[in-house]
């Protein structure tokens, strides 16, 4: 089999599939990408057995066939060739010879039959969103996902679909991010699944703020997201996500409103001197003023006074400053509101007049 393609046509799909190929694999075949050629279409597949990416590329080929090639090496070769280069891939017995201009590379290959197949996603619940909608859901929440937490069901994003809304929630137990958008999904039954962290991170990289449709299929064990050139499939985390409704405070009695930018910039400045490990920040609330302060083990200190609208009683509360900055960074409105109860209860941060996204942060005892 002899395949010819333009560098630009190969590079993007190769980058997509390589993104899920782990640098250290359980078996050699997982370092490879499955290359299937039918007519003028090449389909590339990469997997780590949890997440699978399938991308398509335009090529010319003298025959149809399937083979696997080292994914990262092939991508790095394509990347290092000059723009506009023509690349030919000649498949021989046990190797592939890649030629472009005066360069020649020989890659080892493995038979396509050895390539692991993710189970087909059948009997799936299926619905459509726009890329922009899915991107919004992910961008607003994914930063709060846990990483290697014992509570394995937190190491991913909760994805919930009902007939007229889609909701994403992420939490590491210390803070929680919630985003719900209205969408006529038309699904007949509500579904709640947990998508693993790695899948979310790789998938969000592919999403753009466009109105292009995205098809989402959810089966018992998998979720599949079909974009125009890429199909993403991920195993689901088998577990029960905590009841997020219960931890979003319903009756915080104190509300503080202020400029998002002013608050974020102030926190940004003082965070320089916060304890790098615990990142504790003390907030003193007074009528129409908050005083935020941090210190570190070197006894260095930072303090900011920020004008706010606040007319309840004054008190003091501690937070991880990083959690606050994460939430403020994704809030889009000019003004934010912070709802509080007392120094032992969580606070709710959200954009003023924006109920789509909500952020809950647990306090720290300082």
């Amino acid at each position, binding site marked *: 089999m002899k395949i010819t393609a333009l560098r630009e046509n190969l590079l993007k799909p190769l980058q997509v599939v390589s993104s899920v190929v782990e640098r250290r694999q359980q078996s050699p075949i997982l370092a490879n990408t499955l290359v299937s050629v039918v007519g003028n279409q090449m389909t590339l597949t990469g997997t780590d057995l949890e997440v699978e990416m399938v991308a398509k590329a335009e090529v010319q080929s003298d025959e149809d066939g399937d083979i696997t090639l080292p994914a990262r090496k092939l991508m790095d070769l394509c990347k290092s060739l000059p723009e506009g280069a023509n690349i030919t891939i000649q498949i021989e017995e046990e190797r592939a010879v890649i030629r472009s201009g005066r360069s020649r590379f020989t890659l080892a290959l493995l038979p396509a039959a050895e390539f692991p197949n993710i189970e087909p996603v059948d009997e799936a619940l299926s619905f459509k969103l726009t890329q922009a909608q899915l991107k919004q859901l992910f961008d607003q929440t994914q930063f709060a996902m846990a990483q*290697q937490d*014992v*509570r*394995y069901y937190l190491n991913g994003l909760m994805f919930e679909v009902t007939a007229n809304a889609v909701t994403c929630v992420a*939490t590491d*137990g*210390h*803070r*929680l991010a919630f985003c719900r958008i209205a969408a006529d999904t038309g699904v007949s039954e509500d579904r709640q699944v947990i998508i693993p962290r790695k899948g979310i991170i790789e998938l969000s990289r592919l999403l753009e703020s466009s109105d292009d449709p995205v098809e989402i299929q959810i089966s018992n064990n998998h979720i599949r997201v079909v974009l125009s050139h890429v199909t993403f499939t991920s195993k689901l985390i088998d577990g029960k996500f*905590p009841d997020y409704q219960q*931890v979003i405070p319903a009756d915080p009695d104190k509300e503080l409103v202020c400029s998002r930018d002013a608050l974020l910039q102030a926190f940004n400045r003082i965070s320089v001197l916060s*304890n790098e490990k*615990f990142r*504790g920040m003390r907030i003193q609330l007074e009528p129409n003023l908050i005083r935020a302060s941090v210190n570190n083990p070197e006894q260095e200190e930072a303090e900011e006074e920020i004008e706010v609208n606040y007319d309840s009683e004054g008190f003091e509360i501690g937070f*991880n400053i990083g959690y606050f900055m994460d939430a403020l960074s994704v809030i889009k409105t000019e003004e934010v509101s912070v709802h509080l109860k007392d120094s*032992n209860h*969580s606070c709710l941060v959200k954009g003023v007049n924006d109920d789509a996204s909500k952020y*809950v942060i*647990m*306090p*720290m*005892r*300082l």
Partner: protein
Amino acid sequence: MGYSESSSLPRSKINLLYTDKSNLLNQNNLMPNSSASTTRKILHVDMDAFYASIEEREDPSLKGKPVVVGGSEQGRGVVSAANYAARKFGIHSAMPMMQAKRRCAHLICLRVNMPLYAQVSQQIRDIFYRYTPLVQPLALDEAFLDVTASEKLFGSAEHIGQCIRDAIKDELDLVASVGVAPSKFVAKIASDVRKPGGFVVVDHEQVQAFLDPLPVSRIWGAGKVTVALFERMGIKTIGQLRRQSEVWLHSHLGKFGEHLWRLANGIDDRDVVTDGQAKSISHETTFAEDLTDKDQLEAWLLHLTEQVAWRLRKHELKGKTVNLKLRYHDFKTITRSKSLIEPTDNTDKLWQLTRQLFLNNWSAANPIRLIGMGVSGLHKHGELADLSEQADLFEQPVDPRIDQLADNINARFGASTLQRGRSKNK
């Protein structure tokens, strides 16, 4: 059920020829109960037919009759322990019950009563503590004691050994075998050579004469495979092994070979490690029959986790890293570990991590021979005061009272009175 050895023993680098002062000072600083300069006195106390003897004691009509404790006579039950009368019929632990029954028609088969054995084990340990705080339990029925410093108070190590053996006999009506030697390795062999009711003292000068004629299989750690290898090389006794060069052994068995050679030469500087100074605390158990059933394995693992967590709490330690050990039917052994963000002594937290590690490494296709769990990254409670307290959305602040309550009940009524709801004895 064994307390894991390998992970918790500090490997001393000093050998007997090294006596320069700086090195000794270091050694003493690192390991306060080490005494490389003087001869140590180590006891190994090993109960004879422990489970079966307790049963005989509880029901004197069983005395002299062949008795085993173990699983049911039907199905895959196996012998956990056999008394000496039963052993005369060739019955030994790990033998299927049905086979044992065939060998001896009037065999008396009893179910394992673990809470009782654990309670007795604690009583035995309390006797040890009368003579030394340096007690390293290896299992319910055996322990090492370092009595070097106790000789001034209670008389010679030999005398202490006799007192302990007599106390066990008088107070608990049970028989122990005792080995007294300058090292753990020799003490363990010494307690074993004249079982039951053995009492063997090996002085520093006699170590080599004692070891040399023994078969290599007596060496702690030399299993079937290693012994077979030695046999092919014509090495049958410890004396023959000793006369091989260390380098030669290293080339065949690597570091393990060097270790065996040192043991064969009576060199064993390993200290008696009590829980309080351990670098890790672990429990493991070898199954009489390889297990594949996930639920059964999980139940065992939970049981081990409860014991480890209990020992952590007893010694006011918190651990950060959970280690899982699995030995498969083909002796392939893997260890996997995972760390918590903050050290804990909470059984539930440790169990969540342990279970996760287990599920990641379990497969129905690989029967498991040995399972173990341990906790390392240990901190004394006081060392942790610095950590700030980040509240959690979902966790009720962990209520230490649950573990405390279970510990108190178990301390009073035997180690397994109160367990989490998942029983391995289904």
